[in-house]
């Protein structure tokens, strides 16, 4: 089916997320929609899927204008979507999830589970998915969950399939398999919109590429365009993928991790017998595909998550903090930039100055006995906002009102302003605009130059390569290997799939 978007505009308050976007996808075509985080790709697709209503513009399918009043309409018209965050209900089975909203029914409106199961088996066999219809979603690995999403779309006879950042959670091998599936689907006549910000994947699979930036289409390209060309279209200028940094002098081992294991929320072993040391003056990057235990590792290092008792230890500056509380770990000299700033790093309702004292409310320069030292807090906040270039009307603005990049700067400012020797930065630039990324990278490198030990946890290979002095690659909770920054991309990619170097 041919899909055409004409002049789609979507505003959120004063923010224009999509600005008269035009896009045409021919039947059987794999069309890549390329753009940075926050460029407006997901908004556009949610408009297409009827989750948002466009303020202006038209959606056409096979040249007929459509009017979607909710995802139900979009689905009925033949649009299927695999969302970045899976839209699956964890406590339902695969068959129930696939059937939901489109249920085969029998006597008295009861569910015909046999029919639902067969549907899953049939599609699963057609594409060689190998999915058990009776498995609970929460027990399945993400790669399989994604296949369930695709089955869900296909079971509704989707002829336009939208895949929103589908590879973010996949290993390189799983990514390859997904691409094969995409080609197979396209061959059978399904049009595919492939949303991503990863250039290599676009070049590998797309028939046509549309690049959007800041909510606007900035151009189209063919897959044989050079990586640099595509990248500069995407970010609006020549990108510098490396950060200037000198060799620095290694200090003593400030963090020593020995054989720790950690459980995740579902009580699966997420970190499995991990050991490493980090020295003063170096950046150790922990690379890996999302969901291989990095999050849990970071939480265990800070003490938010407990380490399995009996085996393993964590020491900061020679002091054992294996089972210490978060407060003890922070006081032992650890600064922590959490992966999800809105969830763990900030209190959105608090003002910027209140957020600056978030982890220093017990006894610190911010306190005077049991009272808050308001004048000093104001002074510090004013200084930090200035030094870290936080764009805000005032230090009394609630942090939740700032843009993502500025929120992240508040977190970074707070952590770097603390006089400590270890920095754990988890995804420090996720969802941040390019300008802020550069700034944050420079700050991290300068911390390292000052002799701090930095643990950088990142799923972005580019970021890892730009900053790291050593790279530890995690796969399924284990460290596959620790290698130098000169290691070729391909080798790292293999390591991220579990093959040791």
């Amino acid at each position, binding site marked *: 089916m041919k899909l055409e978007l004409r002049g789609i505009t979507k505003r959120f308050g004063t923010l224009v997320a999509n600005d008269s976007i035009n896009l045409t996808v021919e039947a059987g075509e794999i069309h890549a929609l390329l753009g940075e985080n926050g460029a407006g790709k997901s908004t556009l697709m949610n408009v297409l899927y009827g989750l948002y209503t466009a303020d202006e513009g038209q959606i056409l399918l096979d040249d007929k204008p459509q009017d979607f009043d909710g995802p139900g309409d979009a689905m009925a018209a033949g649009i299927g979507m695999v969302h970045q965050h899976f839209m699956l209900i964890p406590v339902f089975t695969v068959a129930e999830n696939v059937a939901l909203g489109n249920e085969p029914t029998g006597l008295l409106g009861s569910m015909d589970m046999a029919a639902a199961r067969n549907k899953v088996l049939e599609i699963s066999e057609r594409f060689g998915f190998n999915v058990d219809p009776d498995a609970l979603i929460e027990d399945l690995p993400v790669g399989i969950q994604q296949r369930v999403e695709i089955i869900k779309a296909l079971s509704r006879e989707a002829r336009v399939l939208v895949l929103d950042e589908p590879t973010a959670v996949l290993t390189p091998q799983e990514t390859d398999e997904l691409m094969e599936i995409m080609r197979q689907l396209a061959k059978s006549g399904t049009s595919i919109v492939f949303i991503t910000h990863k250039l290599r994947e676009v070049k590998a699979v797309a028939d046509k590429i549309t690049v959007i930036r800041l909510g606007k289409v900035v151009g189209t390209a063919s897959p044989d365009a050079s990586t640099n060309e595509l990248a500069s279209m995407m970010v609006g200028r020549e990108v510098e993928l490396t950060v200037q940094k000198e060799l620095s002098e290694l200090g003593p081992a400030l963090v020593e991790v020995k054989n720790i294991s950690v459980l995740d929320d579902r009580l699966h072993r997420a970190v499995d017998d991990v050991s490493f040391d980090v020295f003063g003056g170096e950046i150790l990057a922990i690379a890996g595909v999302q969901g291989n235990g990095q999050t849990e590792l970071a939480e265990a290092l*800070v003490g*938010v998550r407990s380490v399995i008792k009996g085996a393993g230890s964590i020491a900061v500056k020679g002091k054992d903090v294996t089972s210490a*509380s*978060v*407060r003890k*770990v*922070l*006081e032992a000299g650890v600064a*922590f930039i*959490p992966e999800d700033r809105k*969830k*763990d*790093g*900030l*209190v*959105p*309702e*608090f003002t910027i100055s*209140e957020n600056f*004292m*978030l*982890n220093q*409310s*017990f006894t610190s320069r911010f*306190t005077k006995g*049991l*009272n*808050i030292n308001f004048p000093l807090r104001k002074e510090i906040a004013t200084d930090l906002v200035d030094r870290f270039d936080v764009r805000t*009307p*005032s230090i*009394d*603005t*609630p942090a939740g*009102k700032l843009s993502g990049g500025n929120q992240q700067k508040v977190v970074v400012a707070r952590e770097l302003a603390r006089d400590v020797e270890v920095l754990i930065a988890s995804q420090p630039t996720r969802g941040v605009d390019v300008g802020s990324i550069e700034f944050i990278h420079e700050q991290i490198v300068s911390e390292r130059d000052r002799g701090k030990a930095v643990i950088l946890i990142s799923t972005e290979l580019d970021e890892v390569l730009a900053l790291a002095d050593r790279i530890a690659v995690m796969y399924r909770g284990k460290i596959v290997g620790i290698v130098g920054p000169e290691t070729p991309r391909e080798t790292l990619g293999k390591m991220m799939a579990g093959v040791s170097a």
Partner: protein
Amino acid sequence: MSEKDDRFSQAFKEILSGGLTRTLLAIILGFLVGALFMIVSNKEFIEALGYFFSRPADAFAAAWNVVANGYGALFRGAIFNADADSFEKAIRPITETLRLGAPLIAAGLGIGLTFRVGLFNIGGTGQLIFGMIFATWVATRLELPFVIHMLVAVIAGILGATFLGALVGYLKARTGAHEVILTIMFNYVAISIFTFLMRDPNLLQEERATGNPKADPAAETALLPKIFGDEFSVHFGLIFALVAVVVYWWLMERSTIGYRLRMVGHNPDAAESAGVNVKRTYVIAMALSAAFVGVAAGNQALGTSIGVIPSSHANIGFDAITVALLGGSSAPGILLAGLLFGAFKAGGPSMQVIGISPEVLGIVQAAIVLFIAAPPLIRALFRLPKPQTTNALAAIRDRFFRKGGAK
């Protein structure tokens, strides 16, 4: 439009969109709902409605009469009685409002505190009763000199309530059980224990109260002294409530403890990452909350010279929820809300006298808070502008009327 006009209309918009306006509108709406109930349940009005089309004025007159009489009686009973023959009698109503408002204020602070930590303390009643048990025991079974006896009894009341609050907090932190269910169940447990204690002369029962659950009256030395002499029954409970308001304000707005409580209320995950022990904070919050409720318990146990009975908790634990909601969980807000609902309690009997059931005030109370609970509703009803933040007015408002709300 000149620039000055523009700024004026901007400021006007901000006042309209603010919490204060919304609160006032909700109160007005609440009274209107109450008026509606008074009208439709009024016999004269229903009769006049029977011949509405021939003489509509009768119906309107009847409606106006019942509302004017009803709220007039409320005013006479709660604020100022112009018909009284002496000045003391004329101002006695307002002192009654102060007396009845005091425990609502103290308990309201307690409930408001939990709202700001993201918890729901539905267990005000149980905590109040535990406080009363302890305070009554000290007041009836210990012999201490005047003032000291009273202070010890008040402190015992606070400790008794705190104990139950901390227990709930501990159970929640330890097992993840929901505090709403725990507090509701403890309300029933507390009332059973209280009644049991009041049935046994060896425990708290008054000798003469054969069979009926009733406690010994508090010793003279333990009673809360009257503030304005014997002419008025308002006693030191009011002073304690006002002290509690100041303590609450300091705690929540100025201290690092309150800062962490609010942090946990807004975002427990971030608090955890910032080194705050969230579970321990829940225990502390429930304990502090119950401590404020305990002040009200002292008020109930020591404010009367006849012995307490099982119903002496006077539903304050529940009313405190509405007080905290109306007061936006801020110290000054709760003070005013407690006085308003105290006035309802003080004015009820005068309404009863003229044949209007004071239960209508319960409806008014519920309606006010219902309107408060949904800011978008009030905005939609009155076509108010959306809330605006950045300006001096907001800063002042933030400072004094910081909205807690339960998230």
